[in-house]
């Protein structure tokens, strides 16, 4: 038989259904955000691990000018090396009829028998090239999709200065090119960068590499010292023009992926945890007050002889039921959103399989946390009431120390209407309660800001990176260093408003035992198309000698202005030189080493040459410009800022913003839940008093003013407090994670503050309407019959 107390649980839930719903909503929002975010992050990490394992992603990589294949056997003999996969990998250029933009690419040789041992391909479409048809190639799936390449399509490739026709027979994913980027471009550009895999005979003969290789992928034996192996490889390859061996940490795709995952971790673990924590705190406040409001009932149950344990169990059931309803809704919502968001990741993260992962522990943990948080609050309140003698508990809670606020009496004389004095005394007379409910409302604001912040941060990143730092409209890379006359050649093109040359070389910085692979960029003094800036966005001039480091690199290498760092050029003669760190720049996108171009030329022991050009182009004549550039044989590739920008907002933007939108939405739900509950409970506790005011003749409006003015007072404090807390938490989150490719700034636009405040005020306004309805419906007669 169902016990009467259990019937009471059901009736209480029904009679408080709106309140129960708003609490459940709070739980649901916390659980949903948590489940969604953690699942998504786990899905990404899981997909990466699977891809790396299934396709045998190499541990070490090295490039060189040309080494005979016998050197591969020598590499195998190095202690600590596992598999060695020699290959030919070279930059190429693609010609397409439908675009004037130069498309750059990389061609990689495939062993005669198909799959390589390492960095295997996951075929998405088509088939493997036939060894008897050297013109058949596999291309990376991202490019195939971006350019709508069909199987069987011809592809014109410029190899080693010679145009050669290939035919696409397959598209594939590779763990080496989850993000396909070429150096000096921090973002993947799938439309203008292609990876081709062709039979080794075809590639080797095009580059005169028969019986030789210029690139090698290796695995490392378990327990071997990476540093030792890298040194041995470098030593062995040095006579063959080795450009320095490196591990996954310096592999461009993996580095970008790691940074991306670090950002995702911030968005997916840290922020939702804070979000969930706040939701749990609010749950605590709301449930605590709900139980407090049942003080009389608890006392009556005690008076009737119910043991504290029985009463506690009763509330445990009530609160757990609410938490379960909320968790269930949260789990469903969370899983649903997770599937949607993971879908949006697929366009960005190129994994063979990327599915939302719902690990049982996660679902159980989220539910348990909600139940525990809710019950902790309930237990505290039940205990506080249960320890009182029933007779005392049956009376309303001791009024606060009102005498303290007797000054309101003199001040209030005829000046302030008494309903406001009632509100003021209630607010000030119960400081702890007022504080909690104010903090509760305040904490709703960061939850909304968490979502809005990402929009601001991305806008800011775009603004700073693409209109203040990188000021060129397009960038060209040359096949080999060109003399500075190239600048005049480019400036002479109709439609080119400005052109500046840069020297970009791959380097390895070494400070003590720490190393960092990146590109050194040589800029001319007074460069206008790339302006390094400091934190306050003020331009920093490039030092005439020595180097300027981005703050991320300086941090990683523990370098400060004035320190000496060894710079090792990873091409040509592999010059190593000690230079002095002269300045630190604050890069948001990418991490760079910047030098004066002449200084870099001196380090390289070369004349005044450059290999990259930044252009400012008249938009009206851009087609003309590109058609002229297309016919320049020395141009290897290009990137166009406008395309970058759309890429940025389509991929990173789109991906982050979906999560942000969901976060902001749930933040809003929580805000409404908290404000509504505050008002609802205030009303519940005061129904008797308010009805009394109505009876003596105060209008509904005057009576509403009592509760509304209390809520307004709390809002006035809560909103600025919430904005401050939000700002602080966002700074904390942003500083907790500064990756190498990205520096998501703690920038909050004033409009976001306004939106968050307006939303909370709107939630409050909705609550005011609800209060007014309740006051209108107060049963004046019933009030006369009971003491409380």
């Amino acid at each position, binding site marked *: 038989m169902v016990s009467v107390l259990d019937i009471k649980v059901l009736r209480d839930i029904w009679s408080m259904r709106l309140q129960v719903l708003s609490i459940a909503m709070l739980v649901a929002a916390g659980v949903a955000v948590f489940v969604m975010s953690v699942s998504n992050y786990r899905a990404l990490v899981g997909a990466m691990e699977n891809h790396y394992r299934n396709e045998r992603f190499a541990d070490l990589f090295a490039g060189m000018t040309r080494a005979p294949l016998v050197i591969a056997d020598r590499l195998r003999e190095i202690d600590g090396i596992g598999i060695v996969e020699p290959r030919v990998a070279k930059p190429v250029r693609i010609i397409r009829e439908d675009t004037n933009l130069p498309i750059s690419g990389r061609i990689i040789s495939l062993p005669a028998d198909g799959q390589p041992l390492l960095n295997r391909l996951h075929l998405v479409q088509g088939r493997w090239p036939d060894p008897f048809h050297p013109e058949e190639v596999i291309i990376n799936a991202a490019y195939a999709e971006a350019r709508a390449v069909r199987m069987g399509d011809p592809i014109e490739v410029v190899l080693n200065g010679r145009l050669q026709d290939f035919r696409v027979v397959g598209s594939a994913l590779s763990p080496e090119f989850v993000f396909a980027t070429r150096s000096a471009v921090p973002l993947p550009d799938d439309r203008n960068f292609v990876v081709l895999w062709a039979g080794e005979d075809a590639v080797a003969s095009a580059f005169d590499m028969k019986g030789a290789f210029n690139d090698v992928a290796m695995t490392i034996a378990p327990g071997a010292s990476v540093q030792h192996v890298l040194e041995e490889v470098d030593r062995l390859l040095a006579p063959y023009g080795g450009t320095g061996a490196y591990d996954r940490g310096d592999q461009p795709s993996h580095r970008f992926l790691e940074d991306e995952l670090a950002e995702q971790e911030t968005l997916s673990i840290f922020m939702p945890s804070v979000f969930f924590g706040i939701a749990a705190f609010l749950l605590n406040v709301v449930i605590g007050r709900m139980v407090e409001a049942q003080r009389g009932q608890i006392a009556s149950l005690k008076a009737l002889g119910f043991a504290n344990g029985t009463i506690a169990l009763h509330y445990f059931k009530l609160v757990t039921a609410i938490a379960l309803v909320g968790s269930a809704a949260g789990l469903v919502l969370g899983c649903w959103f997770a599937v949607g968001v993971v879908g949006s990741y697929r366009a960005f993260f190129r994994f063979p399989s990327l599915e939302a992962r719902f690990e049982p522990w996660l679902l159980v943990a989220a539910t348990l946390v909600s139940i525990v948080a809710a019950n902790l609050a309930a237990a505290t309140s039940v205990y506080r009431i249960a320890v009182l003698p029933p007779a005392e508990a049956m009376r309303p809670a001791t009024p606060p120390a009102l005498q303290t606020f007797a000054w309101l009496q003199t001040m209030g004389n005829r000046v302030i209407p*008494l309903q406001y004095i*009632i509100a003021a*005394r209630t607010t000030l007379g119960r400081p702890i309660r007022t504080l909690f409910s104010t903090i509760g409302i305040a904490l709703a604001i960061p939850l909304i800001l968490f979502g809005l912040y990402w929009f601001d941060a991305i806008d800011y990143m775009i603004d700073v990176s693409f209109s203040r730092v990188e000021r060129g409209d397009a960038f060209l890379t040359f096949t080999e260093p060109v003399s500075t006359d190239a600048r005049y050649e480019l400036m002479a093109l109709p439609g080119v408003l400005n052109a500046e040359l840069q020297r970009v070389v791959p380097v390895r910085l070494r400070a003590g035992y720490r190393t960092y692979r990146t590109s050194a960029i040589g800029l001319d003094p007074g460069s206008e198309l790339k302006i390094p800036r400091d934190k306050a966005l003020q331009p920093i001039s490039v030092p005439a000698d020595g180097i300027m480091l981005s703050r991320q690199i300086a941090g990683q290498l523990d370098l400060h202005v004035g320190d000496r760092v060894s710079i090792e050029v990873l091409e040509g003669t592999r010059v190593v030189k000690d230079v002095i760190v002269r300045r630190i720049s604050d890069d948001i996108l990418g991490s760079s080493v910047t030098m004066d171009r002449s200084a870099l030329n001196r380090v390289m022991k070369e004349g005044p040459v450059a290999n990259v050009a930044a252009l400012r182009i008249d938009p009206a004549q851009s087609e003309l410009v590109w058609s002229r550039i297309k016919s320049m044989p020395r141009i290897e590739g290009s990137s166009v800022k406008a395309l970058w920008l759309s890429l940025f907002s389509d991929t990173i933007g789109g991906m982050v913003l979906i999560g942000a939108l969901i976060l902001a939405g749930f933040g809003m739900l929580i805000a409404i839940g908290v404000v509504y509950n505050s008002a609802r409970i205030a009303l519940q506790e005061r129904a008797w008093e308010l009805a009394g005011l109505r009876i*003596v*003749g105060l209008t509904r409006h005057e009576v509403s003013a009592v509760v509304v003015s209390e809520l307004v007072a709390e809002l006035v404090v809560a909103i600025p407090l919430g904005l401050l807390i939000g700002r602080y938490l966002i700074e904390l989150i942003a500083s907790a994670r500064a990756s190498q490719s990205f520096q998501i700034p703690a920038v909050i636009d004033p409009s976001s503050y306004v939106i968050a405040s307006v939303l909370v005020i709107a939630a409050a306004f909705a609550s005011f309407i609800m209060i007014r309805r309740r006051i209108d419906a107060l049963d004046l*007669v019933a*009030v006369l019959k009971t003491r409380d």
Partner: protein
Amino acid sequence: MQAYEREAESSANVPPAPVFVARGLTKVYGSGDSQVTALKNVDLDIRQGEFIVLLGPSGSGKSTLLNILGGLDAPTSGSAKWRDHQLTGAGDDELTTYRREHVGFVFQFYNLIPSLSVEENVRLVAQIASDPMDPRQALELVGLSHRARHFPSQLSGGEQQRVAVARAIVKRPDILLCDEPTGALDVDTGRMVLAAIAKVNAQLGTTTIVITHNSAIAGMADRVLRLSGGRIVKEEPNPNRIAADDVQW
């Protein structure tokens, strides 16, 4: 004291025209099987300045009748009128105005606002009345001037009830409605509260209706109405009113 004695002379004898006129008042709560008829076809006339005591067991309809006369409840059928105010069929705003301008209430459980001091509780009503007396005068009338700055929680039950009386009369109400004003009090405190009510009735000429279980209080009334089963079963004029101090129970 002159201000609130202006109508005193009219309370000495029964004035000619009734101020309250109720005809066929019926109040039914609930519906179907759970239907309860609280008032059945009650007719009633009350004259200006009368001191009426409503007597009867629980459930006899006393409170329902009082609530309808006070504008807190509406009858299911029948009509009730106070002077030119039609109480039946009036909207909430009209009833609020009626209570605000004309009615003072005293309840069994005082219903004071805990966060307002004694003086403020009284002033709360003075603030919304059109021609109130000084709140301190109202407190003086119930003998509580010295407690003006205390809060309700610092007063005894009897004192709280007297504050409720002061709060009810500060607006110089035309009608004072008291529902079991001594129900929660001991004899001595109860007498003090009754004395305050009688004083207001006598000095301000306020039409006063008191509900009680306690037939001893009936001795203070001009007229006693006995209710049972939702009807007025007996009406007893009382030519020899006694003072509150002489009430025994």
